[in-house]
């Protein structure tokens, strides 16, 4: 590649941007991202949008295509209100795990912000999406947009055919089970998710090719024998207990019609698509933040951007990685950007300038010098929980002043169980890692029995961990939703593991 960055040749010096400057800046960023950091990315598609379009995207999981549902309208109304009243700003960008990797930039951003955002989203997140094992295994970057397109059209057709209320009832009920609608530990029994997506995308494409206004029909209201056979065979293959409630209901519900099963499947597929993102917040944001910080600093060091731009960048960057203390009114948990960025910067430090403590804790990487490879390996092979367990160093625990608090609901006091000292490092690290284990804070509800004949009762089981019961605020509403999908009595048991 031809070098874009030349000494003393500043790529932009104005707060306003135009497409020419964007292109020039993107090329300079790419030179560092690919030439120096050696990132491996999907092609980039960078879209400039207005703030209203950003709000639009917000309300529907940040996806450019999404089916219609009232809950997205509700989120939009809330976000719009918050934004107009000045309670919250909008994100500078949204990035989508797809190939090509789509990133939205807001038109209001200054040029320095656009540079930051491109480095962050189009290189940081992009590299993470393409390389992290969770995304590689569980999501299909090629297929997601065609699939969402299919889903949107399919649901719109169902609304036409069966009415808003019918469709809404199924979607509402399925949404309530989204957290319990993913495969966590094992791959789906038969079709892999990617195959499934591809099959559905192909189906969508086929529909498009054979689209004909006169012959437009929905899949039959009644299931044909062959499909029924196939489905029942799948049901027989399910080994109870089954953790994926949506999957079980989709396959085994005695009352759902084919189009309703398809709706449940759409919600389930979308839940599964977002599942890796839930497990990699710290890593994903840490990776993107580390990358943008490195690139912007490097652009400055090489003389491609001036003092003004780097100061503006540092201002935004420091607010992104700001971590309020637990007793600060602004505190709302650990900031994934702050923790991720700190840990990744720390890995670089350990590789380059290790102290005795680091050599003791991280003998494999301390002083190895090759931080690029170590970081890329971490980005590819870990999720938040395992990453923290592996790489959280005593230095970071000290910098953040981390401490663990044990809280037993039966007692009037909480107890400090560990702090950032020699005695506490391992415990703090282990507890912090556990906090990022989704299994710990999302209830583990499974199907344990289903009578496919007779009274057709569905029995669910909540495995109680550490005595933490289901909140009864939502429990009964959700059971009603499950009954909508199952069509017969649903029972939920709760016992200690």
């Amino acid at each position, binding site marked *: 590649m031809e070098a874009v960055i030349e000494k003393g040749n500043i790529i932009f010096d104005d707060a306003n941007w135009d497409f020419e400057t964007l*292109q020039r800046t993107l090329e300079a960023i790419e030179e560092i991202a690919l030439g120096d950091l050696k990132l491996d990315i999907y092609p980039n598609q960078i879209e400039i949008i207005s703030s209203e379009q950003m709000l639009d995207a917000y309300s*529907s999981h940040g996806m450019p295509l999404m089916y219609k549902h009232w809950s997205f309208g509700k989120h939009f109304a809330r976000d719009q209100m918050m934004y107009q009243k000045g309670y919250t700003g909008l994100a500078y960008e949204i990035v989508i795990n797809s190939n090509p990797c789509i990133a939205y930039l807001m038109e209001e951003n200054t040029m320095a912000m656009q540079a930051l955002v491109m480095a962050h989203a189009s290189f940081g997140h992009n590299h993470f999406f393409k390389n992290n094992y969770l995304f590689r295994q569980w999501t299909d970057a090629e297929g997601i947009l065609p699939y969402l397109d299919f889903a949107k059209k399919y649901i719109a057709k169902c609304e036409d055919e069966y009415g808003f209320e019918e469709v809404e009832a199924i979607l509402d009920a399925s949404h309530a089970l989204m*957290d319990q609608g993913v495969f966590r530990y094992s791959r789906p029994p038969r079709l892999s998710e990617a195959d499934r997506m591809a099959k559905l995308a192909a189906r969508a494409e086929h529909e498009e090719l054979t689209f004909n206004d006169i012959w437009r029909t929905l899949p039959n209201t009644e299931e044909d024998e062959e499909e029924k056979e196939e489905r029942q065979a799948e049901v027989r293959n399910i080994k109870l207990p089954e953790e994926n409630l949506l999957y079980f209901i989709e396959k085994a519900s005695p009352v759902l019609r084919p189009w309703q099963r398809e709706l449940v499947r759409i919600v389930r597929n979308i839940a599964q698509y977002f599942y890796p993102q839930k497990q990699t917040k710290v890593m994903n944001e840490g990776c993107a933040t580390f990358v943008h910080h490195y690139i912007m600093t490097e652009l400055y060091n090489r003389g491609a951007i001036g003092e003004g731009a780097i100061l503006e960048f540092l201002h935004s960057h420091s607010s992104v990685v700001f971590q309020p*203390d637990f007793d600060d009114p602004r505190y709302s948990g650990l900031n994934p950007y702050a923790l991720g960025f700190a840990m990744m910067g720390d890995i670089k430090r350990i590789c380059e300038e290790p102290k005795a403590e680091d050599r003791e804790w991280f003998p494999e990487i301390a002083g190895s010098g090759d931080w690029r490879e170590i970081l890329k390996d971490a980005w590819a092979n870990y999720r938040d929980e395992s990453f923290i367990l592996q790489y959280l160093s005593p230095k970071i625990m000290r910098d953040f002043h981390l401490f*663990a608090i044990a*809280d037993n609901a039966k007692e009037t006091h909480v*107890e400090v169980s560990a702090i950032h000292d020699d005695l506490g490092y391992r415990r703090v690290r282990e507890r912090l890692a556990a906090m990022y284990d989704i299994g710990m804070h*999302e209830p583990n509800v499974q199907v344990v029995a289903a009578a496919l004949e007779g009274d057709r009762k569905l029995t669910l089981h909540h495995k109680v961990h550490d005595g933490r*019961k289901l909140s009864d605020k939502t429990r009964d509403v959700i059971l009603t939703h499950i009954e909508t999908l199952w069509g017969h009595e649903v029972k939920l048991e709760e016992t200690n593991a």
Partner: protein
Amino acid sequence: MAFSHFIDRRKNPKGKSLGNRQRFLKRARAQIKEAVSKSLRDRSLKEIEKGEKISIPSKSTVEPRFRLDPETGKREMVHPGNKEFGKGDKIKKPPQSGGKGKGKKASTDGEGEDAFQFTLTQDEFLDIFFEDLELPNLVKRSLKEIKATAYKRAGITVSGSPTNMNLIRTMRNAHGRRLALHRPSTREMNELKERLFELERIAQPSNEEILSRKDIIAKLEAMERRRRWAPFIDPLDVRFNAYEPTPVETTAAVMFCLMDVSGSMGEREKDLAKRFYMLLYLFLKRRYERVEIVFIRHTHHAEEVDEETFFYSRQSGGTVVSTALDKMLEVQRDRFAAHEWNIYVAQASDGFTQSGDAKRCVEILNESIMPISQYYAYIEILDERELEVFSNEDSGAELWRAYRTFAPAWENFAQTRIARPQDIFPVFRELFSKTKREAA
């Protein structure tokens, strides 16, 4: 750079989430409606025309997920910013919320009991408010305005005005024709030209090359001819969207708004009356595109005025209510023949009139107005103190009592009273409520 590209999406159509919004409003309809009526109570005239921030209980649109109850079990959380704690320190729990930082989280995922706030546009606001209101007894009499037409799509034609050109059809036809007539494409031509260039660049061409050069030139000329003969777009290809005028049935209706602006009406009373009419005006404009509205105000004599004067000008004088009724009849005879129009009348007054005039009003109503009207609503504007005195339906100012005597004879006559701004909306709903009328 092949690797990345920019797309400018700012010009894309807006309002992508409109469908979601409509679904949301529908979903929370009952709660939104309640909030709308509540907020209407304390609004001024001007404010009615603006959008409105409303809040509804978030319970109505909750999206439930299984959650662990923070009041049960054990957990161990890691937090930043330790200053003085050491291992084993005990800290008293803050009241109610289970653990640190947990209290705030409940509301962010929409499960809190607190209100959900958002903004309705003016259209949405009025739509919801007027939703189940209608003009009573609207019948399609011999329809005066049957002449009204609307243009409807009626397929595709070969002639029309350029603004109606159907580009997709036109281009599709052109494409089909080009294929059928084997029109040489620009790409084919360019390829040949390319080869010709190459051949021409050869300084000492062989016989073979000279021949193929001539051949290419001949081919190119033939293609040129063919392209002229089969143009890119031919007038034959052009199609237009056709529109056909179709008669639209409309119901001709007129609303007479009669308002007392005499000296006995204080500023407060006038304001109440005007607010009532403003609401009526908005309602009619919104729900009935073709309703005519006639504004008549009166003191001891009556005049027809435009809406600006009706709502915003000040005037004072004595009171003779019957002049307004006479004026109304005059206008009606003049412009709104009873067999062609649905006639509605709303009258607002403080109920005081010259002695003996009330009787005359009743006569006019009985003999001339009621027989031709679909609906007549009389709104008496009361002083707040009077409300106590006149709590009984039968007692009231002169006009009220006079109207009470003849009212039972006419089903389409309604009388009601307003004493406070907050009465306006309930009274309005009562007068025009769809469900109540159907039930009655």
